[in-house]
């Protein structure tokens, strides 16, 4: 009797009604983005250009990245028109 251990169906169907898979990509990065809230003009470029879309509005004051999945690519820092974001090596945060 064939089992349904891996697939619920006869063919290669996957079901997103079950929890999605998720890798710990936050573990990849060697640098993290740090926002200078005073310099931030709230334009949102960092949010639209982040490939993972992890940069969120914090109230109406500034944007900040949710670091759980940030891969540290540095695009947000590069695209910020006011250089309000700096990429700091992870080592600085692991004392």
């Amino acid at each position, binding site marked *: 009797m*064939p089992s349904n251990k*891996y697939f619920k169906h*006869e*063919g290669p169907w996957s079901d*997103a009604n079950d929890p999605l898979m998720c890798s710990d990509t936050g573990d990849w990065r060697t640098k993290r983005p740090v926002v200078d809230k005073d310099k931030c003009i709230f334009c949102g470029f960092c949010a639209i250009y982040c490939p993972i879309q992890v940069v969120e509005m914090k109230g109406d004051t500034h944007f900040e990245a949710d670091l759980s999945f940030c891969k540290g690519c540095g695009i947000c820092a590069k695209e910020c028109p006011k250089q309000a974001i700096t990429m700091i090596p992870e080592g600085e945060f692991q004392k």
Partner: protein
Amino acid sequence: MNIKTEKRSQMKVITGNAAAAIGAKLARPDVVAAYPITPQTEVIEQISTFHASGEMDCELITVEGENSAMNAVMAASLAGGRVFTASSSWGLVFMYDAVLATAGARAPVVMVNVNRETPGIIAVSSGQQDMISTRDSGWIFLVAESCQEVLDMVIQAYRLAEDYDIQIPVMVHYDGFYLSYLSEGVDVPFQEDVDKFLSVLKDQPGRTTLKPGQKLGVGSHGILGGYLELRHKHVMAFERSKDKFDAIDKEYNDIFGRSYGGQVEEYRMEDADVVLVGSGSMCGTIKSVIDEQREKGIKAGLLKIRMYRPFPSEALVASLADKKAIGVVDRSLAFGFKGGPIYTELKAFETQLKGSKLISFIDGIANSDITTDNVVKMIQTTLDLASGKDVPEVTWVCYPEANKPQSNEVGGQ
């Protein structure tokens, strides 16, 4: 579900290709992909005419290549549609990656393949080499003997492929040039009867289909145990399709009054001393020669293979065990083996045949006719085998040169 209706008749004289097209039309497919290749072209021309006249309410996609034909119908099938396409030889192998993907995805696609010589040498002639080249695709392969059987098989193919217990694509093969262009009397079923025959499927649980917004996706990677689980499911479904096909033959007989026997058809086998095993249009010739030989007192019989994949080993063994001598007629070659492909496959079960002897006949390649004389020779050779004489294991009936002693150098003798 036994539905007794009056056996209604609508006799028409049509070609094998027209029979295939009409069979498809009667099944009411949603999506049909059309690309021409000799000797199949008339199938899609007929369907195009039905479509243009409004007789056939389907999406007709005139694709730019056979590869696209199979890809289009595979996707439409996985989205939930009933589909149809047709091809032959080079077209079949051009769509082969999609053929494999269709089987892997367990999409219930139905297509006809009009047998023609492939691979290797450019030829526009009859032979079963294209069926042999693609036999490990994971599809169910059915082979038709006559124009009537082509039409009946196409309708039965939908019943089989879309059955909830099966969900395997089905390919109906018939000989190009001999059946494709031959006109025979065919009893064309009425639309209402075909609708009734296929309506059984509506009562079954629905198969998984791809629709917007349902968060289901098909074509997922199979990884380790998952891959093996799917393969095993496919193998089990393959096994189930044998009995299912026999049952469908009975269901068909109940409505349309025609039975062929299911996986195999036995012709005058009960007391046969010698048996020929064959498939396709050659069986018509073999049957008439057997009748003649019987008049002369020679007890010959025919075992016709209708379901080639899955290989109907149980049915073959049940029928052939205790027969003294069996000649397997192949309309193709098995590269790497001396004998023909169906002979080689049957030989794997030789020990279950309780002493029957097997020999191979290769005939009918590249439009060489399998004549009544050829069949007489085959029966005679098999008789010789039965009486203990020394006969060659493999006889190329259509090319006697091959039967002479050969030197092993390039260029032959």
